[in-house]
């Protein structure tokens, strides 16, 4: 069991948008200044609350994208067309705008930098976000734990963090990145268009006898399929941690 994640009452804190970066056509990274924000652990999420001027409020949970940093928080939000909070964050929010956040939340889908076990990250779509926090945390801590990322995305242009992953694959020793393009692959792709399958997991993941931690995040159907493949490949169920989005 992971150690306790939250020590006291989680209070709502004012978060001010400091910077916005476009990631894809439908996803932005919002950088927030949050006075008093404690360092999160890589993989955790945060509750976001928006309040209208008549008091109407809406809350959602978002995975944290940044490495643990006191007082600062990055969220990568993909717009859901019929959503209530994500269209505001992606289309309306500007630097200087204020929202409220509460967290960090979640003490299980977390990478512990002191754990020497190798790590396999398998992300589908925006499920890359908490995995990116782990990759950034690994670099920030100077960890040498071996990381392998398998990232499933529809096409090159839908890949979040593509430039940073390219740079980190070159500069972060011990980080390997493999893609599964499910609709359109770039000319440089080493494998044809297709979903994450046992061959890719065998080539780009870890053998079960190395006892890696496996973190799988994405839409439920993706997570269900990948988690089952990992169990079938011999990974014990309690080494496979999942975070699922949507229905």
């Amino acid at each position, binding site marked *: *069991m*992971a150690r*306790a*994640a*939250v*020590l*006291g*009452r*989680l209070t*709502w804190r*004012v978060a001010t948008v400091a910077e916005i970066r476009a990631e894809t056509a439908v996803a932005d990274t919002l950088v927030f200044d949050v006075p008093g924000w404690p360092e999160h652990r890589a993989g955790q999420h945060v*509750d976001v*609350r*928006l*309040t*209208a*001027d008549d*008091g*109407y*409020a*809406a*809350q*959602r*949970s978002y995975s944290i994208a940044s490495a643990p940093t006191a007082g600062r928080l990055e969220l990568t939000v993909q717009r859901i067309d019929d959503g*209530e909070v994500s269209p*505001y964050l992606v289309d*309306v*929010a500007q630097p200087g*705008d*204020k*929202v*409220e956040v*509460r967290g960090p*939340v*979640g*003490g*299980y*889908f977390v990478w512990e930098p002191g754990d020497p076990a190798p790590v396999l990250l398998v992300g589908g779509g925006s499920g890359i976000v908490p995995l990116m926090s782990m990759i950034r945390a690994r670099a920030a801590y100077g960890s040498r734990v071996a990381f392998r990322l398998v990232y499933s995305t529809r096409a090159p242009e839908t890949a979040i963090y593509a430039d940073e992953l390219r740079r980190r694959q070159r500069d972060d020793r011990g980080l390997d990145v493999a893609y599964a393009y499910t609709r359109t692959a770039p000319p440089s792709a080493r494998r044809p268009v297709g979903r994450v399958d046992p061959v890719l997991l065998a080539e780009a993941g870890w053998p079960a006898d190395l006892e890696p931690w496996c973190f799988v995040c994405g839409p*439920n159907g993706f997570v*269900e399929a990948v*988690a*089952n493949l*990992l*169990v079938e490949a011999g990974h014990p*169920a*309690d080494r*496979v*941690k*999942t975070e*699922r*989005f*949507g*229905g």
Partner: protein
Amino acid sequence: MGVVTRGFGGRRRQDPELPPGQYLTDDFPVLSAGPTPRLDLANWEFFVATEAGARHTWSWAELRALPAEPVTTDIHCVTKWSKLGTHWEGVALDTLLADVDTAADFALVHSYGGYTTNLPLEDLTGGQAWVAYRYDGAELEPEHGGPARLLVPHLYFWKSAKWVRGLELLHEDHPGFWESVGYHNYGDPWREQRYWGD
């Protein structure tokens, strides 16, 4: 009222039937911390272990032979979604506990796969909780906790343990899986008891 967020109007889908901070969904999202266990009904059993050391068990056939009840209820997930008017079928905990002699105040619920969750025993009796094996007119799917899950809809849905295996009845409260890592020990959605200290 919190800090006003400039330019936010909201879609006003807020429903008076929803607990604070929740939004409506028509989907049935899945939240599981690990892979979905695949269980063999031939080896499946449900147990109740009392604080005095007695152990009661039911095979799958024995469970299904007990009187079943239809349950129509709203469910509320701590991750903010609520789903209204869901239809279930299962055996009331009142039925399973009828012949169990206990003076325990708490239950630690165990699931296949190792998940646990805790709650006061009084929240499992009085027509408030079931071992549910059918959802929306069909056998409960593994992703949603099949073959059987606990259904305690008056608390946040993580208390409704998937792949339920049994109850350990205890004199003292023992935090379960999520309750040990920051989530509220009791989890009443109407009091918005999401996290420790709420």
